[in-house]
């Protein structure tokens, strides 16, 4: 082959090769665009479905705090006031909500209000006891059916028997809108209340606290154990068959389906040790087992990444092995370990299956205040709400997904912050 032939070959092949380059670039670009589009679509669906959950509908109700009806006097003590007959005041207020209501109409009107209205009337009174024997205009929470209608989530044009609100109730709602006796405000209940059978007063506070307690348990249990295990394996353990076997099995453990850990929690923690069911303590213990290998793997990787010269330097000035490891190697491995830990915690936050196994799927209408109280967790709460037939829960589940996403986002932000904060150059 002479020189010019070789040159020609190179040129012709060169074109093919640069075409290959181009093609690959476009493949990559398309793949990226596709995944981005899917992500945007996902977020759009969640946000467009869920943002209405951050608002609630309230109705202006005229309440007559008559002392006869309440069975109270202006001199009543706080305890007596607590026991005032507020349901009678509410009944009266609803009877007079529209002029000249018949008995059957009153029943229909009653269904426009949330079950929580009694409570709201009571609390308004307890906060302002001087309103006794006066008429007050109070904004009270509307029933979820009204709320959903006004938000446009449920439709008016379906046949009456397939609607939550019948024609008369619809006309009432229309009248309220016309008279401006109904409006939408920020839904504080969503952030301050636990789960409820009534969508308008169901919130994520209970499951949020449950998740927080669970994550706390996970962290307390898994972080020290993981650090201890990885430091031992990486720095102290002899390299032999047994440690090799342990190492392989730690990696295997990271791939065990989470529901298996749930079974373990059910079989061992609940049935053998008799720990309280549905509690963050048990949920956290199960998730800690699941998180442990993730943290160990991250921690060992960061321990490996610390240059051996640092440890040698410490040993050469006469540090003991433990001193060299804990004064120099572990602090340098900490940023990576913390990042791994937070990734593990984020995984634990989104885990549903093992929590279902240990009973954290129970309906818990209270906000938990400790590790041993029954509670829900965010992902399980979402699962429960998605399952619910009522319209009002659909937007709630989307909104709860937003909460969990923001939670995750914040955890990742903390991970990035910690990594940048503690990262030291050598």
């Amino acid at each position, binding site marked *: 082959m002479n020189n010019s032939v070789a040159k020609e070959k190179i040129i012709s092949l060169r074109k093919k090769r640069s075409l290959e380059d181009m093609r690959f670039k476009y493949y990559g670009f398309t793949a990226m665009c596709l995944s981005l589009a899917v992500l945007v679509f996902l977020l759009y669906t969640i946000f467009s479905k869920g943002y209405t959950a951050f608002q609630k509908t309230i109705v202006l109700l005229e309440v007559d705090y008559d002392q006869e009806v309440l069975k109270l006097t202006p001199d009543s003590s706080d305890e007596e006031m607590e026991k005032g007959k507020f349901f009678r005041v509410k009944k009266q207020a609803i009877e007079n909500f529209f002029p000249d209501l018949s008995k059957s109409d009153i029943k229909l009107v009653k269904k426009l209000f949330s079950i929580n209205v009694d409570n709201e009337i009571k609390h308004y009174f307890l906060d302002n006891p001087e309103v006794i024997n006066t008429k007050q205009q109070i904004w009270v929470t509307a029933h979820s059916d009204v709320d959903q209608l006004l938000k446009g989530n449920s439709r008016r044009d379906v046949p009456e028997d397939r609607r939550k609100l019948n024609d008369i109730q619809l006309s009432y709602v229309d009248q309220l809108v016309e008279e401006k006796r109904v409006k939408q405000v920020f839904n504080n209940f969503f952030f301050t209340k636990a789960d409820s059978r009534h969508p308008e007063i169901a919130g994520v506070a209970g499951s949020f606290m449950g998740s927080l307690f669970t994550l706390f348990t996970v962290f307390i249990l898994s972080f020290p154990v993981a650090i201890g295990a990885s430091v031992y394996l990486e720095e102290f353990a*002899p*390299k032999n068959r047994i440690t090799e076997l342990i190492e392989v099995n730690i990696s295997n453990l990271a791939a065990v389906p989470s529901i298996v850990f749930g079974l373990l929690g059910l079989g061992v923690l609940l049935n053998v040790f008799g720990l309280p069911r549905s509690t963050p303590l048990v949920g956290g213990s199960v998730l800690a087992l699941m998180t442990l290998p993730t943290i160990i793997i991250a921690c060992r990787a960061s321990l490996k990444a610390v*240059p*051996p*010269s*640092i440890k*040698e*330097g*410490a*040993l*050469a*000035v*006469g*540090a*003991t092995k433990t*001193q060299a490891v804990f*004064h*120099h190697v572990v602090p*340098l491995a900490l940023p990576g370990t913390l990042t791994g830990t937070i990734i593990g915690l984020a995984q634990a936050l989104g885990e549903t299956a093992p929590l279902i196994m240990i009973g954290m799927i129970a309906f818990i209408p209270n906000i938990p205040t400790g590790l041993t109280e029954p509670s829900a967790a965010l992902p399980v709460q979402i699962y429960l709400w998605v399952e619910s037939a009522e319209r009002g829960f659909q937007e709630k589940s989307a909104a709860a997904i937003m909460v969990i996403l923001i939670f995750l986002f914040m955890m990742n932000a903390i991970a990035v912050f910690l990594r940048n904060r503690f990262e*030291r*150059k*050598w």
Partner: protein
Amino acid sequence: MSNSKILANGVDVYYGSKQALFGISMDIKEKEVTALIGPSGCGKSTFLRCINRMNDLIEICKVSGSIKVDNEEIISEKTDVVSLRSKIGMVFQKPNPFPKSIFDNVAYGPTIHGLVDSKNDLEEIVHSSLKKAGLFDEVKDRLNEPGTSLSGGQQQRLCIARAIAVNPEIILMDEPCSALDPIATAIIEELIDDLRLNYTIIIVTHSMQQAARVSQKTCFFHLGELIETGETNKIFTNPDNTKTQDYITGRFG
């Protein structure tokens, strides 16, 4: 053998099944600089790391034979490695300051050995060590800055200061200048000359000129064997062994 500081006798080192050192025997005098020279892979660093038991870190490494420091056997199960290493400082090929402040780098050794009772004592040790390492004037205003912010040569002197701070009797240097530029090298060589007055120094070097400049004794290693040992002047001008002759004249290695 009046003032011999280190006495090695028949030291064999194995990495797994591969023998790296063959029966090294050596006598190192107090307050002298001994240079270990030889081509790459000849075992000079391995021998150096036997003296402060740094080879313990390598799991497959097995050392046999005898090394006596101040007439005390150190190749034995009973040797207290930690106090041995406080007696024998080491400076590595690549400067390896801790990712801490300059002050903390030097203060680490004295602190873990409990050499100081008060902050003032510690400060004094840090300052005097930095002075002995010829670094104090350059860093006295920024002792709280990270040690890693210094230049390569300064970092190496910081490592020397760190080694000096625990008051050793012997300093091992494993190619201390191989990562440094000629100016930083010259400074370190000068420093070694000063340190000789108070410390016994063993230096591994690839640079024949460096060995000639700083050492009084030179040992030539080849393929795991100690070929020749003697006065530096003699080794470089009139070696007994032809291999030594070939190496220092640049015929191999």
